[in-house]
């Protein structure tokens, strides 16, 4: 795929984040909450939520907590760090 990660000399993968997330599933469970609705709740843009879902952007700790709070769930249920996952 065109967006396939590029591995640099240091092993850092550009394009995809190591942080996995369950936002899509959590939105589905929350009465099919839209990306825009979630974005409005956490004070971000729809594009940012879409980028986080696609693992194209790792949110700040503050935004990550806000997202977890929006779903009334611990942050660990929303985000997980999996460096070996691809």
């Amino acid at each position, binding site marked *: 795929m065109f*967006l396939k990660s590029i591995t640099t000399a240091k092993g850092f993968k550009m394009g*995809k984040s190591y942080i996995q997330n369950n936002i899509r599933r959590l939105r589905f469970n929350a009465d099919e909450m839209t990306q825009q609705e979630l974005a409005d709740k956490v004070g971000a*843009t729809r*594009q*940012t939520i879409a*980028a986080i879902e696609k693992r194209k*952007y790792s949110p*700040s700790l503050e935004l990550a907590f806000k997202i977890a709070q929006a779903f009334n769930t611990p942050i660990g249920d929303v985000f997980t760090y999996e460096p070996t996952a691809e």
Partner: protein
Amino acid sequence: MSYQEKENIINIFSSLLITTIYALIIYQKHLNGQFDLTEDFATWGVIFLIFIGVSIVARIIIYIIFHIINTIALQKEEEAVSDERDKLIKLKATRNSYHVYTAGFTLAIIALAIGMPIYWIFIAFVICGVLSEIVDNVSQIYYNRKGI
């Protein structure tokens, strides 16, 4: 296409349009003999100062027209909302544009050092300015689409 991307495209075109038109007008005046840009460096200063004013006014007008057309096309008013990701994208894009401007400035100094006429440095300023703005906006579009 997001509002930011549309804004970036408008920025690129307005930058190219304003600079090209202004440069053509100045070059025409130079050809007509109204001033000699190869010798009169004080005039270059005046030209740059006027350009800043013209550029700001022209951009405001272009933005108003863009906003009106965008609102009519979408049947609703789009707000330019920005969050942490947008700020990070802008920072990275600004860094890229600075790299381009620095490279251009260095090339201009090298050109002076190897004996090119002094007025080339002013032309290099204009070209670097436009190029860095294009790089800034293209970088923003790139990071928006590919991720950061």
